[in-house]
């Protein structure tokens, strides 16, 4: 059974590797579309992982070919789940791509930082705030101004 075990190991490594590569891709990409693609890769890994969770080497697909005694079959549940997960993934990717199209149209770029900068600017513009992270004190918390006619020094006692 030595070779089969190796094979399984390879499958697991593949699955986990896909997840790692995908996640690393998401973390490191500069381009939003690449991030979405990386996500697809990671998702594939996760799906593979799921299928592996119910897989047996010495078994057949879970379809009855004859009535009566049936041979050992792989677990049908993960297969059903993967089916579901894949479709979900497709739906989300399609949505992501359509959003990307719009972003590209609005901002003219899909670079992550540039998009973020555009977004911040737009949010600030809509809200009517200044966008920069300036160092000035927030509202209402500035030190008390001296009363009119009072020398500033007199208020700052050794308190």
């Amino acid at each position, binding site marked *: 059974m030595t070779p089969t075990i190796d094979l*399984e190991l390879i499958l697991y490594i593949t699955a*986990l590797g896909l997840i790692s590569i995908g996640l*690393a891709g998401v973390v490191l990409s500069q381009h939003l579309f690449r991030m979405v693609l990386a996500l697809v890769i990671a998702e594939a890994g996760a799906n593979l992982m799921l299928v592996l969770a119910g897989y047996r080497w010495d078994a057949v697909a*879970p*379809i009855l070919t004859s009535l009566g005694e049936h041979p050992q079959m792989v*677990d*049908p*549940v993960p297969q059903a789940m993967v089916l*579901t997960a894949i479709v979900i993934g497709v739906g989300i990717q399609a949505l992501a791509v359509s959003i990307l199209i719009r972003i590209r149209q609005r901002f003219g770029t899909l670079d992550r930082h540039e998009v973020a900068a555009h977004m911040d600017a737009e949010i600030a513009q809509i809200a009517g705030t200044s966008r920069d992270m300036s160092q000035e004190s927030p509202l209402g918390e500035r030190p008390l101004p001296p009363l009119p006619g009072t020398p500033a020094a007199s208020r700052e006692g050794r308190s």
Partner: protein
Amino acid sequence: MRNLTGLLFAGGLGFMLLSIASGLDFGAPPMLVGEAIQSVAPQETGATNIVTSVVLGYRGIDTLGELSILFAAAAAAGLVLGRRHTTAGTLTEGGFVLRYGGAMLFPLLMTIGFYIIFHGHLTPGGGFQGGVILAAAFFLPLLARPGARLHHGMLSMIEGFAGSSFILIGLVALAEGEAFLQPMLIQDTLGQLVSAGTLPLLYLAVGLKVGAELAGLLSHLAQTESEA
């Protein structure tokens, strides 16, 4: 530097996951539920494809959820991309092979699609797979002739009615006093085409819905080239 960081991160992540996964039992999953389902599924659902019985029976509501996700994605994409479709002239007309191949393949794809859907409870395949083929059937002409359009009203009719009929079938069971989505009309004809009661109907609904959603999504993406 960046690449190095990425490499380190991915490698570390993979190593970590691997070290965790090494605790798994290779090749001998516990299959508690799986075994149980295998042993009773044919009797309970009347489908020889046990995956189908899981997808439509045991985990029927997952499938419903999944349909809803597709629907939601399509609706969301519709919201994002808007209604106005300007088919810009960026796409070149397909060549001879594409045009006529598409036309020729259309009935074939339709047939295969429906075949796969209707035999979902017997053989590998089912609503999802068939639905995708159906979508492809409708989409092929679109590639061939950029000017062509899918009839969106029609698509939404199909997706709406397919989805709601899935639910309706479930609700009928509920109205009969059974549980929601309980398979009904199970004949004792395991292995035949007409054997699994309402499951093929459900799969038909799934297939139509998936086909319609995918076609809709794709056409949305294909047709939206510039903002109105």
